């Protein structure tokens, strides 16, 4: 038993690809060793990475495969022997099994008598197996973007392979990949250690040897070192905090082998620029952490994560260098900001005529006109339903919403579209309602993201997305399978989320209708929305599959209402009475379905019912139905469902005493009619027959 170490040395791998490749390599190595019966009980897999390497360390690896005994089945005896003599078929089988003819035996199974052989395959040396199998595993690693570098393009990989280590215990396993033969040497930090090879005598020494060469190969250790250094450096500024940014921490962790943090400052004058712009420049363009004061306001400092530990002089050079770069970037942003103010958003409307939204849907000017109409109608509906919306402000916001696309600042920082429009609207004296609506128009960007803060912002975002979805569906550009080039699913998810979370009194069918030019398109969009509601209830809100199905069967056009019903069903579904009612409703539905298939009639004729149990059910259900309907109108769903559950003794008694399919036709029809009535009356909140019950 030994430890196995594999390391592949590469020219700098893109930071965004490292974590998944590291995990994939570990899985592949573990699967390979497991498949080849090379893993001992209790073996353990650990993986490492830096920009220049991926590595896997496995403890408890066998150096030799155990022998395998295999039973092989050959040709039938009839074919294997002619006149008692072995035929060429028998000889071929013996050869294939690697045994002599005399070692063959007879195997009898259901089909008859066959030639058989017991073959003992001696286990191979682990090194031999790994050397043969490992190259395929390396080649199989997924990379978002590959390259070739060798003559004849024999392989594509993320970046050129520079070295490999494959060590089983102290012995090198002769793995070959991309023209590189594995050995037992690795490389340290490019600058702090230099290009000399570092010998790794045995796998367990890997991490320590690299650390001596200024490489922290353990990602978690590197991440922790960065976080601690960010904390420590920020403490030198009183009251300051670095802005938590998990994504940026990951990026810089995967950009460094030996991280070190340096603080820097910029002129306080730049703080006059909007925080959004400053943070975007620092985070997205320079990979700096922003610093805030005790009150959460941006401070004139930043933190940068280095891939080197410099001396005092170097530290000063690096700090000044980074400060100079940031200052130049901020200067550019200020230039764009001031330049953009020369033409107001309102005066940029004409320019939108030259900016194409989609070739068959026209310019952004045309889109703005359509969005205004949708928004106006949605505002009217809200008003009608006692939800205040400032229609005039919404119309102005919809008019200028896309004008920031013609601004230099957005051309430079595309991720700030909308945000810049909102900031400019405010700076140009438009109302705060308009500014906020424009600012928030692209929200929510994901299911984790917040929704717009104001009704006007919500209505603008919904109108914009509804227009995009309706327009694209009208052109037959709906998403298919995993392909959704225009992000329509995300847009529709956003609409559902906004309706649900802001509890807007708008129906999906209304939104689909307003966003679509033709009714056929609206129908398709509505169907698309229905799928998105299902996704929202199940994947975002976490409601059980059957609850979602039951709720959707009772309609989900009103999203906040569907959410409330799903919540109510989830609350009561655990009760015994409710489970019994669900099971009974399923039974009723089955009876009715079968009856319908046989051409039976169902008629609501309670006077023809004869048995006390069925007459009671008819009376009680009628009484409860009126009660439940009242609670439903008041949206007291939990109470309504509890009321429905009180029907249980009557339903139980009915099925206990009454045979639905009575011989007499009129009675049969009356009983079916009763069941039909009960199902209809009590399925308006959810179709309980969809609820999965035990037993």
């Amino acid at each position: 038993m030994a430890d196995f170490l594999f390391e592949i040395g590469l020219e700098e791998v893109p930071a965004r690809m490292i974590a998944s490749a590291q995990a994939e390599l570990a899985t592949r190595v573990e699967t390979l060793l497991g498949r080849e019966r090379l893993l001992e009980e209790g073996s353990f897999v650990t993986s490492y990475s830096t920009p220049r390497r991926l590595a896997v360390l496995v403890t408890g690896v066998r150096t030799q495969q155990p022998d395998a005994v295999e039973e092989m089945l050959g040709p039938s005896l009839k074919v294997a022997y002619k006149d008692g003599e072995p035929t060429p078929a028998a000889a071929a089988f013996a050869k294939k099994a690697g045994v002599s003819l005399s070692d063959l035996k007879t195997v009898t199974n259901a089909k008859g008598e066959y030639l058989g052989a017991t073959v003992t395959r001696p286990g191979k040396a682990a090194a031999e197996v790994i050397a043969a199998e490992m190259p395929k595993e390396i080649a199989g690693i997924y990379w978002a973007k590959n390259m070739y570098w060798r003559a004849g393009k024999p392989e594509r990989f993320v970046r050129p392979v520079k070295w490999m280590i494959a060590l089983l215990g102290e012995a090198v396993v002769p793995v070959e990949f991309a023209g590189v033969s594995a050995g037992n040497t690795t490389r340290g930090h490019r600058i702090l250690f230099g290009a000399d090879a570092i010998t790794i005598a045995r796998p367990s020494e890997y991490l320590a040897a690299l650390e001596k060469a200024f490489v922290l190969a353990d990602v978690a250790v590197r991440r922790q070192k960065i976080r601690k250094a960010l904390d420590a450096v920020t403490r030198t500024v009183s009251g300051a905090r670095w802005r938590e940014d998990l994504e940026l921490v990951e990026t810089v962790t995967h950009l460094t082998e030996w991280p070190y943090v340096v603080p820097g400052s910029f002129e306080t004058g730049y703080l006059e620029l909007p925080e959004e712009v400053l943070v975007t420049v620092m985070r997205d363009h320079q990979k700096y952490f922003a610093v805030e004061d005790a009150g959460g306001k941006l401070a004139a400092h930043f933190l940068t994560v280095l891939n080197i530990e410099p001396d005092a002089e170097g530290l000063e050079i690096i700090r000044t260098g980074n400060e100079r770069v940031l200052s130049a970037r901020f200067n550019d942003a200020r230039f764009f900001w001031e330049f953009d103010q020369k033409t107001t958003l309102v005066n940029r409307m004409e320019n939108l005529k030259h900016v194409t939204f989609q070739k068959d849907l026209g310019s952004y000017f045309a889109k703005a006109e359509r969005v205004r109409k949708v928004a106006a109608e949605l505002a009217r509906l809200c008003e009608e339903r006692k939800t205040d919306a400032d229609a005039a402000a919404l119309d102005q916001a919809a008019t200028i919403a896309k004008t920031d696309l013609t601004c230099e600042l957005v051309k430079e920082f595309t991720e700030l579209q909308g945000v810049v429009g909102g900031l400019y609207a405010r700076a140009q004296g438009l109302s705060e309602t308009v500014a906020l609506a424009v600012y928030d128009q692209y929200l929510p960007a994901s299911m984790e993201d917040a929704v717009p803060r104001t009704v006007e912002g919500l209505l603008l975002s919904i109108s914009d997305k509804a227009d995009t979805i309706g327009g694209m569906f009208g052109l037959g550009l709906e998403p298919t399978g995993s392909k959704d080039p225009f992000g329509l699913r995300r847009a529709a998810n956003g609409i559902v989320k906004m309706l649900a979370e802001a509890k807007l009194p708008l129906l999906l069918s209304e939104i689909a209708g307003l966003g679509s030019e033709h009714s056929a398109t609206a129908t398709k969009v509505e169907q698309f929305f229905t799928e998105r509601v299902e996704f929202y209830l199940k994947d975002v809100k976490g409601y059980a599959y059957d609850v979602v199905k039951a709720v959707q069967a009772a309609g989900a056009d009103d999203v906040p209402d569907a959410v409330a019903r799903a919540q109510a069903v989830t609350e009561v579904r655990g009760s015994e009475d409710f489970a019994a009612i669900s099971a009974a409703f399923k039974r009723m539905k089955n009876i009715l379905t079968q009856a319908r298939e046989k051409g039976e009639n169902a008629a609501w004729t309670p006077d023809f019912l004869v048995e006390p149990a069925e007459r009671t059910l008819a009376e009680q259900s009628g009484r409860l139905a009126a009660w439940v309907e009242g609670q439903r109108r008041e949206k007291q769903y939990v109470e309504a469902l509890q009321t429905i559950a009180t029907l249980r003794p009557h339903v139980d008694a009915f099925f206990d005493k009454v045979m639905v399919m009575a011989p007499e036709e009129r009675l049969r029809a009356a009983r079916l009619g009763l069941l039909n009535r009960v199902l209809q009356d009590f399925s308006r909140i959810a179709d309980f027959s969809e609820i999965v019950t035990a037993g």
Partner: protein
Amino acid sequence: MPFVANGKEALTFQELLFRLQSFWAERGCVLQQPYDVEVGAGTMSPDTFLRVLGPKPVRIAYAQPSRRPADGRYGENPNRLYKHTQFQVILKPPPADVQEVYLDSLRAIGIDLKKHDLKFEEDNWEWPVGGAWGVGWQMMLDGQEITQFTYFQQCGGLDLEPMCGEITYGLERIAQFLQGVDSIYDIVWAIEPDTGKQTTYGEIRLYEEEQYSTYSFDYADVNKLWEHLNAYEAECLALLDAAKGMPELESLKAQRRFPVLGAYELALKCSHVFNLLDARGAISVTERVGVMARIRTLVVGVAKAYAHQQELTVPTEALPA
């Protein structure tokens, strides 16, 4: 000889160029002169764009003034230029230790890497109009992008065989960095040995920035530019059409003399005129896609014609296996 700028020794702008030239000349590069047609980047010079095609190994380096009209700022912005200078190195195929050689080139221009923070950050270069792309890095030195390092994979829609390494240094940025000046115009370009008198980048180039910006933003005649574009395009297309007849030309000499390079210059002219129209704000987003497709037809057509001409006229036995 390094002079002292902001308390440290630094190279002048022209010394920076000398150092890079001698560094790469010592590593086997042929030093070429800048190409004399307007280009937006060193990659567009035929010394890169065409030489990377075909099997013949190449090592070449040159400075290339690169014009990007939309980046002009009338000389008022300390960090943006209408015309900047790239130093372009083409290594086909690249040596296995090309990254280390690159680091040595930084040492050669006076950068002590132990006192700086250098990162290889993913940056995949692409020139869709040229059907050209590669993968690589932007080299970040203390937060500043100083070099684009690319493994060139395709050009003119053709796979490169062998693959080609391309290193592009941004000379102004590096000089600014080395000299520690906040404005490009304050870069010391040269020092008179006898008197120590300094000549700045601004003295040499500011008037160009002012006038080129004014021309491309305010004076360039949009209608005339469209006429130029159409005329250059028509002539280029005619040449590309004629290039189809290259195999039927009577002699090897006639084939060698067929002016594919002429067609390429016409395509480059179109590209530059397009950039001027763009700076002038005369191209809508819708038109943009269409015009770029037209220029792509020319550039990719030239690359294919060039590769074909090489096949016809360069004896294969003269090439290494």
